[in-house]
């Protein structure tokens, strides 16, 4: 479960890289280069993560969730990626840091776990050795001390025989065990922020429930904030404090999970909610969102959801910025009108 209001430090609700935010992304733009040249992948992405909170990031495949995470981690090769805007972490703008400065933050203050742990674990080293390396990289401790911390970390993620498992190579572990090892590695330096990119998508539901439970328990114990990327709205509803919805490289809605799910303001968020099948819901009546996400090179000039939106009107062909009201954000020309007509709520 998430941290309760009482435990959480008082934070300002404004959008400004205000006091209280642990991470504040402001007007982030990302261009990537492929065979046909540069293309804008993220356009004006802004959101905040407060200390100790769990922020859910949802949206369809290709909307830019992973690219946002990789931009924060500065894991995109500069030759193929250009970023603009600000990523304020504490008192530093990550986009202005040198590679050395960034590598000191990565793994120590901000760490990341991925959907497919095999891609992040090195097949030629034992899992123990990899966690020890992470510790030695960030703390001035003896190898013996680092080894002890690694064993403790494996123990804390519910691995029954940590000393034995530490000797194994990633290949010989099951998917669920690998994800546990990844979590141990990500949390061993007790970072302030953990970015979890679809950490359970490749796992069976029963194992997924184990891993989510573990992730939340540990982060709560250690006071780690989590940016939890997923396309599974149900996981967000159960596990996150606040959420943002992304579409076509932009944040289009954000706010406390309970509020957004109870009264979604953006037609796309509503569409996503109505797409989820349930046992009781009448068959043949799932409310699919018509059409598909436009290609990055052919984004509509106005609201990016306009070609698929059931509420599109002429005004929607004008560019639309993100608007802050209370502790919610919304990027839609017509949200007030639609909310009044109750056209977008559940």
């Amino acid at each position, binding site marked *: *479960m*998430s941290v309760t209001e009482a435990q959480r430090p008082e934070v300002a609700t404004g959008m400004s890289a205000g006091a209280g935010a642990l991470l504040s992304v402001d007007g982030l733009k990302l261009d990537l280069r492929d065979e046909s040249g540069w293309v804008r992948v993220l356009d004006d992405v802004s959101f905040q993560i407060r200390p100790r909170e769990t922020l859910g990031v949802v949206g*369809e*495949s290709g909307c830019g969730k992973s690219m946002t995470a990789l931009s924060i981690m500065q894991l995109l090769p500069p030759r193929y990626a250009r970023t603009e805007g600000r990523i304020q972490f504490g008192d530093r703008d990550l986009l202005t840091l040198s590679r050395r400065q960034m590598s000191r933050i990565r793994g120590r203050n901000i760490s990341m776990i991925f959907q497919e742990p095999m891609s992040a674990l090195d097949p030629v080293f034992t899992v123990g050795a990899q966690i020890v390396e992470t510790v030695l990289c960030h703390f001035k401790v003896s190898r013996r001390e680092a080894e002890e911390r690694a064993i403790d970390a494996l123990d804390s993620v519910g691995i029954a025989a940590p000393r034995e498992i530490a000797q194994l190579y990633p290949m010989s572990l*099951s998917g*669920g*065990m690998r994800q546990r090892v990844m979590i141990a590695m990500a949390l061993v330096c007790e970072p302030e922020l953990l970015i979890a990119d679809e950490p359970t998508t490749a796992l*069976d*539901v*029963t*194992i*997924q*429930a*184990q891993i989510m*439970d573990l992730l939340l328990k540990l982060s709560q114990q250690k006071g780690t904030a989590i940016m939890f990327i997923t*396309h*599974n*709205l*149900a*996981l967000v*509803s*159960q596990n996150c404090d606040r959420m943002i919805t992304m579409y076509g490289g932009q944040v289009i809605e954000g706010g406390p*999970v*309970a509020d957004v*799910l*109870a009264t979604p303001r953006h037609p796309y968020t509503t*569409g*996503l*909610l*109505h*797409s*989820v*099948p*349930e*046992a*009781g*819901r009448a*068959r*043949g*009546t*799932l*409310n*699919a*969102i018509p059409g*598909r996400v436009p290609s990055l090179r052919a984004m509509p000039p106005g609201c990016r959801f306009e070609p698929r939106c059931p509420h599109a009107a002429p005004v929607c062909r004008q560019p639309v910025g993100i608007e802050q009201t209370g502790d919610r954000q919304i990027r839609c020309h017509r949200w007030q009108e639609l909310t009044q007509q109750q056209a977008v709520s*559940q």
Partner: protein
Amino acid sequence: MTTQASNAVDVQNMTVTFGRSRTLVRAVDGVSFTVAPGEIFGIIGESGSGKSTLGRAAVGMITPSGGEVRHGDVDPFALNRKALNVHRRKYQIIAQDPNAAFNPRMTILESVMEPMYIAGIGNRAERRARALEMLDTVALSPELSNRYPHELSGGQKQRANIARALVLDPEVLVCDEVVAALDVSIQADMLNLFWKLQQDFNLTYLFISHDLNVVSHISDRVAVMYFGKIMEIGPAEAVMNRPLHPYSEALRSAEPEIIADQAKARERIILQGEIPSALNPPSGCRFHTRCPRAADRCSTDEPVQRELVPGRFVACHFAEEMLARFAEGGAAMRRETVS
């Protein structure tokens, strides 16, 4: 589960094994169920539980090592090769990965025409007309038909894949994880399409998925599999809301649900332990190594599958007690005790 000649699929005590001696895997181990014509029969279970193997054996694509399969009054494994090939047109499989179904060097239209060519149906013009008709049925716009597979999105490819199965006018379709790889909004679109096709052509589906929400949404009845065995069979709604087997209950509990109010979050059952190895299945009840309700006898005695309520079959020593919980207070009580 009486054997009726009118069933689209009737499987009795079927076993499918792979490998031999020390590497022997009983992928499906003594499974019985029937599917009526026009029914949507869901099969749920974790990875490796034997769903795909069951689906393939049920339509005669692989030969079981024991038990019986009937399609109506036909025994597909008693047919000679030629008769089986004709028979199989009526029993088709749509697999998870649409890429595997398409030759990258053939256009979508050619790929959809191919099964008719192999079956020797019609002339080229007729095959083309039929393929275009089915592409239209699955709502794939005609201009996409001359594209190559890599030029389509995942959802579009899956549509073409369905059209490819439909051109031979099947009666029974095994849909094996057909929406697993798709985004939720596209997934919704596909589920609506599967439902519409079922209505329009009175198709029978074996709908396989590890996603409880998907299976229970579309199915009339569901079977819950664990490790090659069926733990529970019953009407989809009943199994979801009043599970009589601890494994169904745990799956249901693990499946995340959208709740706007976190204070109402269910007390979840989180299964401990890993899925056991297929080479070394647990003794007694196969679920005992992870079952929150396991008692001593569970590790030695295998529970017998029995019909607790008409239409609901369960294999657990304590199924009667599970049932009693619902009988006493009804569903309302359950909601209170678990919330």
